[in-house]
């Protein structure tokens, strides 16, 4: 058979360079079209608002003295702490579900630029969690502060409000990015979620067994920089005077998430899909 003398096919669809904006639109469609997003984010709102206001209500009814230079805003911490599980799950799934389903091959075929894929996923996921968290924490802060006065609580100030809403939302969304990076590195949903839960709980469990004097410094470090403790310090300045306080926790989490995302990018670039 002779080689046919056919010129290449030219499509009527206009050719233009695909950009990060295209990747963002694509990732937004992906994340909003899955039920797991609705479930995890729905439960997250429920926990932050429900648990946060119920605990404040109970404390207000009991009328006990809280002390510890806490404000009414601090009652939200328990709901946020529980909601972290949802954020971790969604963060891991955002990347690992692509590997578990085989979608990653389609994704990378459509966008061979690994950096752009990871950036688009991270930005869309971060903004989604941050915005929903900001709304939830603001609502629960308003309810909590309206519900209880007295109880030995300190008066709320502007910077305290900023930390309890904007700061906490940043912290949780950054923690979600860490989960997304771990999901990229481990590529297996169950494994990555387990790793994230271990990262959250193990430091406190390990610290409980470090009774020897020589381990005191390490024990303190593990306790002060564990994920739940850092969340508490955003609400309430610790009395010990050491460890992270105020915005420190957000900065630490930002640094950890950045390093993890860097590792995820390197893995995504070098590994076969």
């Amino acid at each position, binding site marked *: *058979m002779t*080689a*046919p*003398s*056919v*010129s*290449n*096919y*030219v*499509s*009527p*669809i206009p*050719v*233009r*360079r*695909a*950009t990060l904006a*295209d*990747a963002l*639109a*694509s*990732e937004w*469609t*992906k994340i909003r*079209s*899955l*039920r*797991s997003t609705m479930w995890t984010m729905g439960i997250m709102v429920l926990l932050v608002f429900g648990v946060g206001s119920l605990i404040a209500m109970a404390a207000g009814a009991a009328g006990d003295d809280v002390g510890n230079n806490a404000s009414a805003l601090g009652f939200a911490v328990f709901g946020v702490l529980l909601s972290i599980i949802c954020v971790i799950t969604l963060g891991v799934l955002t990347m690992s*579900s*692509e590997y578990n*389903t*085989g*979608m990653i*091959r*389609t*994704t*990378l*075929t*459509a*966008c*061979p*630029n690994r950096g752009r894929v990871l950036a688009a996923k991270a930005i869309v996921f971060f903004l989604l969690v941050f915005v929903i968290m900001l709304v939830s924490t603001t609502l629960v802060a308003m309810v909590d502060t309206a519900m209880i006065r007295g109880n030995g609580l300190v008066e709320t100030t502007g910077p305290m409000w900023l930390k309890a809403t904007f700061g906490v939302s940043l912290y949780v969304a950054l923690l979600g990015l860490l989960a997304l990076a771990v999901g990229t590195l481990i590529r297996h949903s169950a494994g990555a979620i387990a790793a994230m839960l271990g990262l959250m709980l193990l430091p406190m469990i390990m610290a409980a067994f470090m009774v020897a004097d020589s381990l005191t410094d390490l024990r303190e470090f593990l306790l002060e920089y564990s994920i739940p403790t850092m969340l508490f310090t955003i609400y309430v300045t610790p009395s010990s005077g050491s460890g992270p306080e105020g915005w420190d926790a957000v900065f630490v989490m930002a640094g950890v998430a950045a390093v993890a995302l860097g590792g995820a990018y390197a893995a995504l670039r*070098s590994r*076969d*899909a």
Partner: protein
Amino acid sequence: MIELQGLTKRYGDKLAVDGLTCTVRPGIVTGFLGPNGAGKSTTMRMMLDLDSPTAGTVLIDGRHYRQLKDPLKVVGALLDAKAMHGGRSAYNHLLCLAQSNGIPRARVAEVLDTVGLTAVAKKRSKGFSLGMGQRLGIAGALLGDPQILMFDEPVNGLDPEGIHWIRNLMKNLATQGRTVFVSSHLMSEMALTADHLVVIGQGHLLADTSMAEFIAQNSRSYVRLRSPEHERLLDVLSGAGFTAVTTGDGAVEVDGPEAARLGELAARHQLVLHELSPQRASLEEAFMRLTAESVEYHAHSAPVTGEPSGPPGAKGGWGADWQKKGS
């Protein structure tokens, strides 16, 4: 146009693809044939830059896949029916692909219509049959209206109507001047669709030839003879200048002359014949012989006594023959 240059992939100490060099041209359907585990999918993944080659390169119209600015408008690929998230509807699956390459939203409805999935567009692909998943994958490949199309085992899971549809689709796409590259492990399927063949076995290029040439070479006819006077038959044949090959079961195979001439020859020498039958090797058989030594996963059957019917002197020689031609 896709150019593979010395493409090699090594997993540990196992060579999955070994120095593959060939060119896939536009305007025709190129069949990519090989037994299971021959390295077809690995090769296709390297063409799409999903796996990075240990050595060698793939050029798509002169560029690396990673350099393509709008890949879906250049290459459309069906890798496997499962390369999608089952929780997403067919429409959303295609929409997110379209958006990633700035393809107009209207194209999604168009390709859904082309593959016949409009009715289930809002259904989650988790509930799709293998054939429907395959169609959705094909829709994804067609989304960017690309000039190059790659299909990995596209007929898997399709019903006869679907198989007929995909055959015509591939032919039409090629007629429009596109490059169509389709893998399969079925020779019979390729015989109906492909104009050109690239055959690999255990990562090696075994053949790079046009379909017509492959048929001409492999549907060669030969004659099988059987006689109680075996030795005398061989003498008579060699006396007449024919090359005869004795097969394991005592028959003699002669390549070239027609059965009638051999019958007359035997009559002249008053030779009793128990069999005189013209034979024709099927393409499937030719493919099996070509790849026999490179099949990775053999099913172990009882030891076969005697040679399977086929043209004489075909062992090994064929593959080596084409390998030179292809490289």
